[in-house]
């Protein structure tokens, strides 16, 4: 089995549009949450959302490349440019090698809604234009990026709800580990527009603490009242150790374990046993003991039920060792399809800079969360190994174990 290393990361999120900005936000505990006032007029229960600017791609990409990109694809392009530059992968490299892409995405609602509106208004499908189909499909990110970057290896989208980004890294890890791919661009993308979030709002999943937007996402806190939707994109480039050394690429970290499971229960209500199985499998794959984990980047989204169940699962697996825990969603909100990938990027930035980002807004624990060692403030500490959890609707669970690279 081959060793799988990370040679590039890139990020475009509500706490920063590149790695430097994001590192500073993580260190200082800066929230990226605000209000989209249009949501109130649209009948939303909550107008809270991650706030991020759309990138300007005119001048960076040609017309044909731009018009197929949906909102989440634009974010993914920006994150992937940053990651590929870090990994020292250029156009010639992509032309000459079978680099793959496995990206997490589970909706392209705005493109679908706009196309439906046009069909209803104009009653003529030609007037949708040529970009609509490439923006509307769930695989919009992989189909566009594989074309833009001239990728020649594996090429498909992973849709696993809010664990999509994490599973994409897990699947990329398995392909490289088994020798089927040498390099895979992994990641996750998430649209932030209101149409993508309406049905989520409809099931009362969102916080309504609208008078204090930056305090609304408060994972593990006793007074949490729901998640805050957010998005952007994160890219994580996986590569075999041999390929990275041969190319002289920077080795940022090593992926040593991927665990997955399905709860086999309720479609939206989480449980404890599923995440415990996913965590145990990841640790077993990594051949690492719970006491060697220095940091847990929790899935915790700030929902009353979900955070409590994750706290129970973490306590069951890590118990007496009590590694530092934080949910970066306290700052970013829930980046949904993107979260499993962005949280790997956030945790690698912490690992590289010897700190654990704070779980902001964690003021008082409840009975379950009191059992965890949650970082209220920024902690200056060495991270040799961390684990990152991602869970999603349908009971899908993913856990990744990442370690500092050692020869």
């Amino acid at each position, binding site marked *: 089995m081959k060793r799988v290393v990370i040679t590039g990361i890139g990020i475009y999120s509500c706490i920063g549009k590149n790695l430097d900005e994001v590192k500073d936000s993580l260190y200082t505990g800066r929230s990226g949450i605000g209000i989209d006032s249009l949501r109130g007029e649209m009948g939303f229960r909550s107008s809270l959302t991650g706030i991020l600017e759309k990138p300007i791609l005119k001048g960076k990409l040609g017309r*044909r490349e731009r*018009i197929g990109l949906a909102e989440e694809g634009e974010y993914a392009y920006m994150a992937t440019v940053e990651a590929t530059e870090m990994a020292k992968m250029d156009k010639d490299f992509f032309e000459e090698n079978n680099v793959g892409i496995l990206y997490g995405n589970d909706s392209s609602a705005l493109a679908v809604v706009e196309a439906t509106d046009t069909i209803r208004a104009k009653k003529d499908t030609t*007037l949708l*234009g*040529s970009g609509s189909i490439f923006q509307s499909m769930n695989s919009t990110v992989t189909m566009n990026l594989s074309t833009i970057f001239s990728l020649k290896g594996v090429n498909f989208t992973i849709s696993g709800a809010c664990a999509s980004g994490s599973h994409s890294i897990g699947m990329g890890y398995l392909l490289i580990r088994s020798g089927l791919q040498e390099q895979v661009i992994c990641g996750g993308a998430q649209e932030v527009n209101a149409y993508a979030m309406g049905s989520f709002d409809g099931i009362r999943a969102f916080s309504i603490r609208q008078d204090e937007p930056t305090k609304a996402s408060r994972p593990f806190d006793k007074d949490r009242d729901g998640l805050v939707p957010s998005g952007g994109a994160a890219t994580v480039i996986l590569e075999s150790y041999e390929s990275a050394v041969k190319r002289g690429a920077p080795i940022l970290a090593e992926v040593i374990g991927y665990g997955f499971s399905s709860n086999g229960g309720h479609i939206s209500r989480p449980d404890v046993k599923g995440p415990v199985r996913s965590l145990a499998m990841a640790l077993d794959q990594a051949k690492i003991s719970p006491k060697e984990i220095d940091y847990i980047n929790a899935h915790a989204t700030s929902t009353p039920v979900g955070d409590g169940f994750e706290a129970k699962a973490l306590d069951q697996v890590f118990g007496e060792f009590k590694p530092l825990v934080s949910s970066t969603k306290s700052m970013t909100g829930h980046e949904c399809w993107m979260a499993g990938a962005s949280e790997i990027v956030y945790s690698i930035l912490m690992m590289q800079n010897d700190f654990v980002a704070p779980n902001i807004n964690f003021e008082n624990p409840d009975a379950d969360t009191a059992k965890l060692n949650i970082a209220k403030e920024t902690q200056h500490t060495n991270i040799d190994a961390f684990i990152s959890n991602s869970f999603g609707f349908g009971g899908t669970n993913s856990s990744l174990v990442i370690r500092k690279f050692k020869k």
Partner: protein
Amino acid sequence: MQESEIIEIINDFLVEEFEVEEEVIQPENNLHESLGLDSLDYVDLIVVIEDKFGFKVQKEDFVDIATFNDFYKYIAGKVAEKQA
């Protein structure tokens, strides 16, 4: 709508939306060769004409259009028909 106004609207969207170099847009130049359009681009040209001039071009109509001038005349003719 005057023909000069029509030409200005067409040239503007060719430059802004189709990223055609301004110096390429000359009345006697070949439209298809100058724009380098593929079959997907023609769909977008139909969309923008509908948006700017309020009528739908059939893709087959492009067959009889060779130069930019032909294109201007074709659009102007359709606009006049619509206004009549």
